């Protein structure tokens, strides 16, 4: 099985569907001649032409609205939002239109578009370093996907582009260069299923996106001390499958929920609450939460690093759960 980057996995999925589905178009800010701000669509303009790879003005709200309209007409728009932060400019279109259209018109039609947005950080300052998956996973009618590996990125994106309803597909800027084994071929991975990324018997870590990688690194360190961590990757935040996480927690009796979002009203707090409901009688310790500090993400390197959870924080949190 070839080893490729997360970026290349996404490119493969896009290229497969561009070739398979003549109604599929890519839209976004600087995705054509510029190649995409994270180079995901580099070369696509030359390969597929300006009718399939469409540069738009910098108008996130209308960009999503346009794509919804095209999707209602039967096309398959795949829109790139340069960062999830810009999705706030489009949140009305995403929540009030994309997520509602099938429902509010009594199932007559839907808006099957895929919104690819980039989460992450890297000395980008307070407005460009935020996690907003909770805002979008909150609303019924919109699927929210956050893959952690190249394999999941390719398979989940393929499925998203073939579905009947809108999907928000959140990539992580710091994952683009990470590598993994990815099968060739066109097979998708079903949306709404979690995945075990590492088996263990002592503590369960429930995470998604980049935090899965950090959890795996922490698990490796802890393993040297005989602590075996099980890592459950949620992969999709809506619909959210907690089945594997609950089984894991019933086995280990201890769980740590990890995410890059802020503590209040976060995906992590939601997961912790649901796990407690499902597995209360099996808990040997309160469910641990490890998320960002409750402060905007600063530009300064040291402040930024102190705001986001890191591997040693995870190791510490796991040890605390066991003590």
């Amino acid at each position: 099985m070839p080893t490729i980057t997360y970026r290349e996995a996404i490119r493969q999925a896009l290229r497969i569907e561009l070739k398979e589905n003549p109604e599929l178009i890519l839209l976004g800010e600087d995705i054509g001649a510029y190649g995409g701000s994270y180079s995901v669509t580099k070369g696509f303009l030359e390969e597929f032409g300006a009718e399939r790879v469409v540069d738009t003005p910098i108008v996130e709200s209308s960009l999503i609205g346009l794509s919804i309209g095209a999707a209602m007409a039967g096309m398959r728009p795949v829109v790139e939002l340069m960062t999830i932060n810009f999705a706030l400019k489009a949140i009305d279109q995403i929540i009030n239109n994309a997520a509602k259209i099938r429902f509010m018109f009594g199932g007559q039609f839907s808006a099957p578009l895929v919104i690819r947005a980039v989460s992450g950080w890297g000395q980008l300052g307070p407005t460009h370093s935020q996690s907003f998956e909770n805002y979008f996973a909150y609303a019924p009618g919109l699927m929210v996907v956050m893959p952690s590996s190249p394999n999941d990125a390719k398979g989940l994106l393929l499925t998203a582009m073939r579905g009947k309803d809108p999907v928000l597909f959140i990539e992580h800027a710091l994952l683009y260069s990470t590598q993994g084994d990815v099968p060739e071929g066109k097979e998708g991975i079903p949306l709404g299923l979690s995945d075990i990324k590492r088996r263990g018997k002592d503590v369960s870590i429930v995470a998604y996106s980049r935090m899965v990688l950090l959890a795996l690194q922490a698990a490796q360190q802890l393993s040297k001390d005989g602590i075996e961590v099980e890592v459950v990757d949620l992969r999709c935040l809506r619909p959210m499958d907690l089945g594997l996480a609950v089984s894991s927690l019933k086995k280990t009796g201890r769980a740590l929920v990890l995410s890059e979002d802020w503590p209040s009203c976060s995906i992590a707090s939601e997961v912790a609450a649901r796990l407690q409901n499902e597995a209360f009688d099996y808990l040997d310790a309160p469910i641990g939460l490890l998320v960002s500090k409750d402060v905007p993400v600063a530009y300064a390197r040291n402040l930024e690093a102190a705001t986001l959870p890191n591997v040693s924080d995870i190791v510490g949190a796991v040890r605390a759960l066991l003590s």
Partner: protein
Amino acid sequence: MDKEHAQALYHEMLLIRQFEDKAAEMYALGKIGGFLHLYSGEEAVAVGALNALRPDDDLFTSYRDHGYALARGCDPKAVMAELFGRETGLCKGRGGSMHLADASRHFWGGYAIVTGHLPLAAGMAYAHQHRKTEHLVLCVFGDGASNAGEFHETMNVAKVWSLPVLFLCENNLYAMGTSTREASAQSEMYKKGCSYGIESWQVDGMDVEAVEASIEKAAAFIRSGKGPVFVEALTYRFRGHSMADPELYRNKAEVEEWKKRDPIPRFLEGCLANKLLSREDADRISSEVERQVSEAVSFADASPEPSLNSLFDFVSA
């Protein structure tokens, strides 16, 4: 204008007027809930516009959408049932007054977030352009929308991409209760279209023939591949913004002045004078409309509410 067409225009306008009067009555009786934005006074705009277009041209509107649904040929029974929140409604009781739609008639919905549907209309127009079809998209909004961001974003992209979209601005002088004078730096809405280089003009929205001719001209321009058109229809709503509006912001004299230009008697008088309609025709149409509206209410009232078992229908995730 032939007799048959004159009858159709008169019938459609009268149907909307009486449907809306009945809806107001049903609201007062508690049969209809929430917000109810009536189209009374503006009938000539919807009827004139939709008669100028092909039935498979696409339609997006704001939340003041009953008139457009009826003028598009939606069954008044299904429209009333939607207002009543019944399973037999156009949208199975999920959308209500502000969110009517009928995909079979290329009516893609009433949208209740001001400006929210403008980019959708442009997006559908983009799809038509991409597929090289002759369809155009009619996008209806009020004067209030023209002050907001997505209006300008959509004007810009429609012109840049030369999209087959017809922007129809219903300038009824008030964005809810705030007059255009107080809310808009430019009180002539079509000039906002001009500022994007879009072919734009005004039409008397109280004159159904003028609206029809104006939209026909706009449609021909768009179908010839020359890009979008912006038409501003000068109109007036005879009732409040919604049924919850005590109308403190405008005086009765102004309302009365506009009522003298009521599009329905105005059109009827013209048709009587030109022998396009007879008194008998008018009476027959009036009784037919009365029957349609009364049947719509009976149908809605007798229709079941959506089953609670269907609570989670139409939600994918």
